[in-house]
């Protein structure tokens, strides 16, 4: 129970930090006033329309990536699994890069193209992995993901090689991930969308525990393993596709947060999944706050920061656990 209180407190603290700090030099008092709608227009706009939706979006995306990572690690029974393993980042990246380089018009062109590319990759991987009818083989799933990802990455490389330098740089920066496109509408759309796969994955927490014993034991113990794998794969992929389309490809959160929670918390998915959601959110909100302020007015890609703060923390955890 104290661990839960600690994690929820950390989540609240992270969100407060996300709103309190930024490249604009605002005092805590000014931020507080702005939250209540007092102060000059620019300050109110910065706090209410930029920082607040940005911190909340980073939290929900970080949580979604961590839950997806946890589910996929259990699904393919591979500790290296992360949300982007299954060809998704390649597909999303290809869609986004194509939209950027070929200058597809419209204010939502890049996120929609990323979503489209990710969905295409998901469909392709799923079809390849469905061997002999309806059986989703975890090994084939992994291999299909890797080859579809590699194929998409090659196409992306080819497009970049024949494109002018500024577009290539912009596309690479987009791929590194960030929350510069955060707004209340982006937050609203993503949250409503994400709620469905998150609930679907959470509802499978018992079968997920069984699956970690192996597919055959899980089946003996009453899990509908084939259905479980299909549901998990589709839910996790759709969730990641949406995360990529709002924030680009942010590595590390989905890989390491689930392991950190397993070390601290144990392996039961009933608590692992919500705890991973909270810790993933905390990590990404804090990483984004650092990305925005460390070299202000310059900003860093958030994906760079997640690994820079996540790796040392994870190393400490592993060392403590190994003793």
């Amino acid at each position: 129970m104290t661990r839960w209180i600690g994690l929820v407190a950390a989540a609240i603290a992270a969100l407060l930090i996300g709103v309190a700090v930024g490249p604009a030099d605002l005092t805590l008092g000014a931020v507080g006033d702005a939250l209540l709608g007092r102060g000059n227009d620019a300050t109110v706009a910065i706090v209410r329309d930029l920082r607040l939706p940005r911190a909340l979006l980073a939290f929900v995306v970080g949580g979604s990536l961590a839950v997806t990572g946890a589910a996929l690690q259990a699904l393919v029974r591979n500790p290296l699994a992360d949300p982007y393993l299954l060809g998704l980042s390649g597909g999303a990246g290809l869609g986004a890069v194509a939209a950027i380089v070929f200058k597809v018009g419209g204010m939502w062109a890049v996120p929609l193209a990323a979503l489209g590319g990710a969905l295409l990759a998901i469909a392709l991987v799923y079809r390849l992995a469905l061997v002999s009818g309806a059986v989703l083989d975890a090994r084939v799933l992994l291999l299909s993901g890797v080859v579809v990802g590699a194929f998409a990455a090659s196409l992306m490389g080819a497009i970049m090689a024949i494109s002018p330098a500024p577009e290539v740089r912009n596309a690479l920066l987009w791929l590194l991930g960030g929350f510069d496109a955060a707004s209340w509408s982006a937050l609203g759309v993503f949250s409503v969308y994400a709620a469905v796969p998150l609930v679907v994955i959470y509802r499978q927490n018992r079968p997920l525990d069984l699956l970690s014993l192996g597919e055959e034991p899980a089946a003996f113990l009453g899990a509908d393993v084939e259905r479980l794998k299909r549901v998990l794969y589709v839910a996790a992929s759709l969730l990641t596709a949406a995360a990529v389309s709002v924030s680009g490809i942010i590595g590390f959160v989905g890989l390491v947060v689930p392991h950190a929670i397993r070390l601290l918390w144990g392996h039961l998915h009933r608590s692992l999944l919500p705890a991973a959601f909270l810790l993933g959110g905390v990590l990404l909100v804090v990483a984004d706050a650092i990305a925005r302020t460390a070299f202000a007015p310059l900003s860093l890609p958030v994906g760079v920061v997640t690994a820079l703060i996540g790796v040392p923390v994870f190393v400490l955890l592993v060392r403590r656990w190994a003793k």
Partner: protein
Amino acid sequence: MLLRNLTIPAVMATVLLACESREQQGEGSLVDDTGHHVSLARPPTRIVSLAPGHTELLFAIGAGDRVVGRTRWCDYPPAVDAIPSVGDGLNPNVESILARNPDLVVFYASPSNEPAIARLEQLGIATVSMLTDDLADFIRAADLLGTLTSEKDRSDSLIGWLQHEVSTFEATRSTETLPTVLMVAWDNPPIVIGSTSFLSQIVELAGARNAFADVDRPSLTVSIETIVERDADLVLIASDSGIPAWAERPEWRVVPAVRDRRFVVVTGTEFSRPSFRAPDAIRRVRTVLQEWQQR
């Protein structure tokens, strides 16, 4: 303010230095922007130009008829369309360059071109590498290429004219409070133009102030929050597709100048690189600024 005071002396100083170093080296041996000594036995007759700015410059000084190869990005003057392309200008394809049988290859000064330069020099083909990032670079390049191609009279008179135009713009800047201009190069992540870019130079000479004039780099990635804080009077977009689609996005509409649609759109390659068309570009920005101030 910094740039305003620096532009002209910096331009002058660079040109003077360029002239001095040539005299020290003696005729026929010149130093380019990478410190490489360029010496030609005779004026080049077959030039491959590996940057759009260099190609435009060669045409302007009257050496256009000797350009036998260009990059696929070279787009001005229209006569370049008739010249075969050798592909990219950065890290170029040496075989395509050799196929044009050049006696001088003009590079943009960049580390990524070093392997190609080494290869060509090995094969006995002269190379020269010049920056053309701002007007000072451009004038230095015009002087060097004018000398190398024996079009010195033409390049000198054009340089003199350009310097005169620039100092006239300096002298006729409004003395009232200058409007601040935000230049957005990209929306996600937001990339804005800093003080050392050519576009910033145009805007300052036209009589405005870059909202990011304090950052000494060509461009920088920032948060929208920083852009809101700078509270620019105008947003200048150098693009051929009009007011960009991101101007409608909710996070960008937090920026007051974007929300109020205080946009100025300019089109044309004269805004993307320094050239002898720069005075025209500056004049056009000055006109739109004056129109905006009278509103």
